């Protein structure tokens, strides 16, 4: 889901940087108000978890690969704004140091994976786990569903961003300048593979860790309730 350099035109790249700037500003402001100093180590773990989970490329035999983002977990435990910061840190390092995701596409990649994903995941978890006791199975299911749906929303957006490019940019003879595949190819490809395979990875890792924390540290889940 890491859009490389050259797949999005300059206008799309610029728009997403422009959209992310106020989001990053708001995230800093809100995290400054709400996050406690003792939660900072957990935020660091959230960034580390997201970073490493994205390295687990899951193959579709003879097809493509994809991965989870691990960002819904941080959103459940620390709130969507803090999660947004943690995932942004992971994505920026991946782009700058490892060339995973383009530097021109940092705005778009952060919009998909570090903004929409944690927010969608957070609110889906909230809705499904509403009023559920901290140790209930409903919380585990809520975490899984939030992971699955949020990753797929992010994949859908990525597909749309790819798919719009041939409409915006092509030469006089019809050759694409950036991503050559339109919405009719990009959206089913991105969404299909995440619905089928990669979404389940996000669902399982999110649900398993929540299940683990129910036993190990229920107070952490309680804290997430007010984040």
């Amino acid at each position, binding site marked *: 889901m890491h859009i490389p350099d050259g797949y999005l035109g300059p206008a799309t790249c610029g728009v997403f940087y422009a959209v992310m700037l106020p989001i990053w500003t708001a995230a800093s402001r809100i995290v400054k108000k709400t996050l406690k100093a003792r939660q900072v180590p957990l935020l660091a773990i959230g960034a580390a978890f997201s970073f490493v989970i994205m390295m687990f490329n899951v193959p579709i035999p003879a097809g493509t690969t994809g991965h989870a983002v691990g960002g819904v977990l941080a959103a459940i435990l620390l709130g969507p704004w803090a999660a947004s910061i943690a995932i942004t840190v992971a994505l920026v390092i991946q782009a700058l140091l490892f060339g995973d995701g383009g530097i021109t596409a940092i705005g778009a990649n952060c919009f998909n994976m570090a903004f929409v994903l944690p927010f969608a995941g957070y609110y889906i978890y909230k809705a499904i786990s509403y009023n559920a006791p901290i140790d209930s199975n409903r919380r585990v299911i809520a975490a899984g569903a939030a992971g699955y749906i949020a990753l797929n929303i992010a994949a859908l957006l990525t597909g749309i961003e790819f798919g719009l490019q041939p409409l915006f940019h092509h030469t006089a003879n019809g050759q694409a300048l950036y991503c050559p595949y339109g919405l009719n190819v990009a959206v089913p*490809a991105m969404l299909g593979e995440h619905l089928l395979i990669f979404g389940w990875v996000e669902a399982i890792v999110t649900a398993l860790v929540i299940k683990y924390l129910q036993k190990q540290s229920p107070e952490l889940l309680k804290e997430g309730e007010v984040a």
Partner: protein
Amino acid sequence: MKLITKLWIGIAVLIVLSPLGLILPEHFKAGSAWGEWSSDEMQKLVGYIPQGLKKLSSLWSAPIPDYAFKGWEEKGLPHLSFAYVMSAVIGIVIAVVVVLIIGKILIKKGK
């Protein structure tokens, strides 16, 4: 053991296992992620390299491209797996330092 220690052990286990993200796709003959093809792959897929893509794709030269040390591309899976683990360690150490700095700037002690 403190919870935070246990979670760090979990991260360490994931780092050690991370080469699975390299080995499994290789084993099942899976190609690049959708929309993350190199220029050569693009040439094969659509018959040309989009001009804008050609220009922008070489814009940034990452120090550890694709989690592999430069010049190690042909060294085989054991070497690449080692580089993958080292990349995870380097990436995570930097991520943790950056988050701690952000935390230091944003959040006052004792809150």
